[in-house]
């Protein structure tokens, strides 16, 4: 582990370093288990029969975290809480208060499709709140301040060939907007939901995804906000028996974006894939937290988040929690985060947390790396005659492309490629 050369006097709370003087890239942060220095990837696999490892980090077990739909259960954070210590609370203050919407975001289905309905759900109206349970202050105030939720349902056995685009548009920068969206895929339906966020707002937007038995659901959350948007959100899913759920979070725009993507299982045979791609420019804070709760046996999960950073004070955070509970025998899980630092002045934190409460699992691994270009990739391409500049372009596009490829919808992939080209132009890649 390397400390930042300019490390200032570290601020400490109960012996743990906090604040901006914490260990920073290029050695990156020391929190969590088994983190890498630049260019190195740590890879770590647990599993096989008979091994039992339990890991609890400084914040305690993820299993002990409060979840609730009652605002009274969550105090306004001070910044010392495990789940808030990386976040810019000054800028987030406006979305953490228990305040009503000033100017709502518009939420529209781009096209109607057979088997898809769009309605509303009041606060206590099922299935609203059956999957979602707020895990922090932001989520709970957003939830309770959204009197009516948008409810988009795909009927049983419907197989949609076109994605269901849901346009979420912020109409007034600096104006508080709360919203809650319930996505339900009934049994054996197949659907790709694309939540496309544009415009600007102080947005507190939660999503709950109900994946019924045998359904195959992809949720792509595209953050294409204007530069002054603030966005906090919790996107929860519960996966039914033998169902598949893929969540892809792509964050390019916004001043501060902090998304929690959570998954748990209703039964057995579920498959979760959680992908993320973020590209932070100067002054942007992009934070992604994923939590896979292996609460029942014989389910699998795979988490891969990748980020690129460029410019002064470009800031990203990834915290990936995986909890394999005592009951979750036969679990197979893996999580990985990789960050590519394109210029000086940027900082990425990457924290994989893996807790395993049973030895009877198929596998559980995690990996994390943060650094500049992988010299081995460059060497390989250059050894085939490709000039260095072009080799770097290929490597950085390839790095980002891995997530774009995972979306599996050509029309979306094309527009994201174009966005990434625009981002890469900034630092001259």
């Amino acid at each position, binding site marked *: 582990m390397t400390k930042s050369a300019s490390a200032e006097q570290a601020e400490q709370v109960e012996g743990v370093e906090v604040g901006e003087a914490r260990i920073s890239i290029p050695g990156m942060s020391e929190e969590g288990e088994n983190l890498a220095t630049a260019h190195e990837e740590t890879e770590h696999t647990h599993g096989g029969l008979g091994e039992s490892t339990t890991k609890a980090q400084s914040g305690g077990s993820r299993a002990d975290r409060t979840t609730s739909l009652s605002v009274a259960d969550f105090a306004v954070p001070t910044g010392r809480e495990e789940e808030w210590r990386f976040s810019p609370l000054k800028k987030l203050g406006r979305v953490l208060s228990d305040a009503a919407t000033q100017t709502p975001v518009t939420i529209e289905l781009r096209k109607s499709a057979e088997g898809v309905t769009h309605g509303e759900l009041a606060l206590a109206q099922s299935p609203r709140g059956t999957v979602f349970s707020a895990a922090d202050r932001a989520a709970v105030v957003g939830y309770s301040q959204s009197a009516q939720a948008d409810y988009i349902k795909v009927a049983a056995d419907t197989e949609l060939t076109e994605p269901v685009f849901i346009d979420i548009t912020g109409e007034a920068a600096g104006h508080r907007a709360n919203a809650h969206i319930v996505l339900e895929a009934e049994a054996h339906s197949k659907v790709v939901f694309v939540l496309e966020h544009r415009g600007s707002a102080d947005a507190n937007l939660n999503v709950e995804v109900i994946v019924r038995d045998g359904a195959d659901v992809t949720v792509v959350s595209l953050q294409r906000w204007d530069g002054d948007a603030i966005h906090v959100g919790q996107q929860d899913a519960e996966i039914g028996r033998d169902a598949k759920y893929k969540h892809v979070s792509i964050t390019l725009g916004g001043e501060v974006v902090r998304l929690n993507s959570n998954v748990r299982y209703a039964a057995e045979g579920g498959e979760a894939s959680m992908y993320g791609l973020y590209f932070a420019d100067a002054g942007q804070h992009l934070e992604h937290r994923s939590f896979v709760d292996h609460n029942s046996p014989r389910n699998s999960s795979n988490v891969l988040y990748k980020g690129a950073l460029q410019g002064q004070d470009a800031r990203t955070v990834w915290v990936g929690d995986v909890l394999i509970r005592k009951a979750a025998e036969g679990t197979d899980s893996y999580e990985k985060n990789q960050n590519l630092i394109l210029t000086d002045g940027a900082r990425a934190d990457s924290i994989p947390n893996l807790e395993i409460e049973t030895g009877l699992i198929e596998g559980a691994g995690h990996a994390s790396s943060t650094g500049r270009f992988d010299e081995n990739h460059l060497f390989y391409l250059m050894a085939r005659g490709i000039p260095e500049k072009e080799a770097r372009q290929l490597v950085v596009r390839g*790095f980002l492309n891995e997530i774009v490829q995972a979306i599996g919808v050509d029309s979306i992939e094309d527009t994201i490629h174009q966005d990434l080209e625009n981002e890469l132009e900034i630092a001259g890649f």
Partner: protein
Amino acid sequence: MSTLEIKDLHVSIETEQGVKEILKGVTLTINSGEIHAIMGPNGSGKSTLASTIAGHPRYNVTSGTITMDGENVLDMAVDERARAGLFLAMQYPVEVPGVTMTNFLRTAKTAIDGEAPKLRTWAKDVRSAMEKLKIDADFANRNVNEGFSGGEKKRVEILQLELFKPKFAVLDETDSGLDIDALRVVSDGVNRAQESNDMGTLLITHYTRILNYIKPDYVHVFVDGRVAEQGGPELADELEANGYDRFLAPAQA
């Protein structure tokens, strides 16, 4: 007719224990159309020679020269060497995430030739070269080396050798980890490239097995960073029978 000339090459690397000299004066001349086998025990510096010719930044040339037709290879960047006609088939080909084989092959071919290959003939060339090497057509859409088995990676190296048509190829333990069928397929590929391009080849190997398929004109035995002995193909037969003991004994005495 081209000549790759290595003269009194000394190469060191930085290790945690300090600078370590690996090559201690290597001299070799390879002409177009010739196959030179470099054989030697593990740790004798064979792979260091291969990586140094390709220009891997880890290897530091402290003295000596490498020239190709009189041009100073050591002055060239890694990509310039490749464009000048040098090719290294790597022992451990690197996985490049997110870059498809198709994109990679076309980009490299364009860089080496200085112009984009003609779309129609290129696609056909790639397909037929892949067929000959028994590489599944679906590999073209996969990312460079990603998830390929050891044998698949080696075949893809030889695929590039056939498509890029270098003047000189260095094959760094291309035979290691191959079963007998794969070894034959890969060897056929090298022989095709050799014949069609009048290529000079430096075949680095630990085992004599591959020499049953690729017939060397010269054999050099590498021990402790130097060429300890050289001769014709008969030297390989002797190594097959007696191993490297004869060469190692004096070093230990």
